[in-house]
């Protein structure tokens, strides 16, 4: 059941990551499509502005191209042009006006098709908010446009030069309202919001799963550690037993001799201290790659990784026995206890491939060591 739980946990994470990546892909693809669609609407709008500008210039050309400079003083004709420009003003093209450049290089209104309350006077000074755009049309002598971010209700401004003998005499300006853009936004905003919420939801679920996973992993780790000695416990052994390669492993079963009498004589608190001290000595006497496990009570199981010479493990067992028996365990200032251990060693030669069978053999050797007088090592011989 626990193994199934482990597999499911990994599967759960893989599915979560795939879902998250899928959501990322979906989200950015949708944003990309929206961006392209917005660009397409902008392209269409620019195309319309271009055609409208062409029509306007075609209509007013007889009046303006040849005499644009003299028109500046002719209120009657400029009013007529302003009136003509009003025909092109609609919800899409909010402001249609013509600007000329005076002898000092300042921009001034020549005609304005705006509504009366917005209409500029003839020769009124015009200070563009996007000066560079207006300079571009003078320099490049071709149509230019730019998005409006400083003006209320305007999306973009489209400028067409009015040329005379290769010189820019005036500029026809079309201010495109944000209406088309807003229509697009109205259509897209709910979809966009839904996608954002969906993505946030997926992300939140992923974060929750991740947190749950971390909590689960921490709990699992805790459940595999013995709270008293801080060594691995039997639960850990159950988790790793199937992965242990017995041909590269030796098993030591170790029991503290006469531990019951320690408990009876000094009490369980002192008994616990003896176990903690024993655990420390076991850790000190083994290598990092070896695993020391509290098997139960005062019994310990040590998995010794033995690469080539299995006989070396006997030396390790000897070292452990000596390390524990040599020095007394100092419980407090007044009390030091001398303990010994009995060891059953299984070198796992000619292994049965069943881990718990090999543990059983080591355990048998431990009991043999106990029977034979304790404080000794017995080695399993197959």
């Amino acid at each position, binding site marked *: 059941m626990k193994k199934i739980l482990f597999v499911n946990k990994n599967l759960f994470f893989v599915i979560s990551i795939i879902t998250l990546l899928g959501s990322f892909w979906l989200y950015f693809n949708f944003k990309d499509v929206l961006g392209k669609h917005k660009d397409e609407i902008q392209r269409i709008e620019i195309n319309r502005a271009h055609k409208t500008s062409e029509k306007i210039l075609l209509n007013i050309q007889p009046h303006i191209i040849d005499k644009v400079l003299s028109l500046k003083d002719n209120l009657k004709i400029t009013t007529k042009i302003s009136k003509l420009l009003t025909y092109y003003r609609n919800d899409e093209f*909010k*402001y249609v006006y013509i600007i000329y450049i005076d002898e000092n290089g300042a921009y001034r209104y020549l005609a304005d098709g*705006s509504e009366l309350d*917005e209409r500029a006077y003839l020769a009124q000074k*015009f*200070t563009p908010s996007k000066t560079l755009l207006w300079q571009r049309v003078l320099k490049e002598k071709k149509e230019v446009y730019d998005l409006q971010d*400083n003006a*209320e209700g305007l999306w973009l401004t489209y400028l067409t030069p009015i040329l005379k003998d290769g010189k820019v005499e005036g500029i026809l300006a079309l201010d495109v309202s944000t209406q088309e853009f807003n229509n697009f936004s109205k259509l897209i905003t709910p979809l966009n919001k839904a996608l954002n919420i969906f993505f946030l939801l997926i992300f939140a679920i992923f974060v929750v799963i991740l947190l749950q996973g971390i909590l689960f992993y921490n709990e699992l780790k805790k459940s595999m550690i013995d709270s008293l000695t801080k060594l691995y416990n039997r639960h850990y052994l159950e988790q790793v037993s199937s992965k242990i390669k017995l041909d590269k492993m030796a098993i030591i079963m170790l029991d503290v001799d006469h531990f019951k009498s320690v408990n009876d004589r000094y009490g369980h608190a002192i008994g616990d201290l003896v176990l903690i001290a024993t655990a420390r000595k076991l850790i000190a006497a083994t290598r990092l790659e070896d695993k020391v496990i509290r098997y139960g009570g005062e019994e310990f199981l040590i998995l010794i990784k033995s690469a080539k010479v299995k006989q070396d493990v006997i030396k390790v067992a000897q070292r452990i026995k000596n390390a524990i028996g040599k020095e007394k365990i100092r419980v407090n200032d007044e009390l030091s206890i001398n303990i010994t251990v009995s060891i059953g060693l299984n070198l796992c030669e000619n292994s049965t491939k069943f881990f718990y069978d090999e543990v059983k053999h080591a355990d048998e050797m431990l009991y043999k060591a106990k029977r034979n007088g304790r404080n000794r090592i017995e080695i399993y011989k197959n």
Partner: protein
Amino acid sequence: MKIIFILMLSFISLFSFDALHVKAEILSHIAHELVKKDVVNIYIDDKKFIKTKGLISSVKYTSCQNADVIFISKKETLNKKCNSKYLFTTSYYLYQSLPDVIGVFFWQKGRPNIIIKSSMIKKLNISLSESFKKYVE
């Protein structure tokens, strides 16, 4: 729930505040360009600009008599006691018709417009910063 409501309210007021704040900023810039004081007293009669009151701390809205700079939108507002003040307008028509107006600040085609009379700048010996020189005609 209360916090969400307050946040929503702040969010809404933040957006409605924006355009008005731009107007207040420009008024403040003009006032400080003409009068070099930390806090400039201004008087304004234009309803479109009244709501900008209190948005900028370096400008104090006051009566015509106590103001350093006067922004008028109607000729009738101007009384004789205030004739000696720096006079600005928010109407292009007044800018053209009143000879003693320094300049005009108005909103047209969704954009702010400023025009300053060079003759008045010379007459009153006002030194303008580089950013304001482009508005002079």
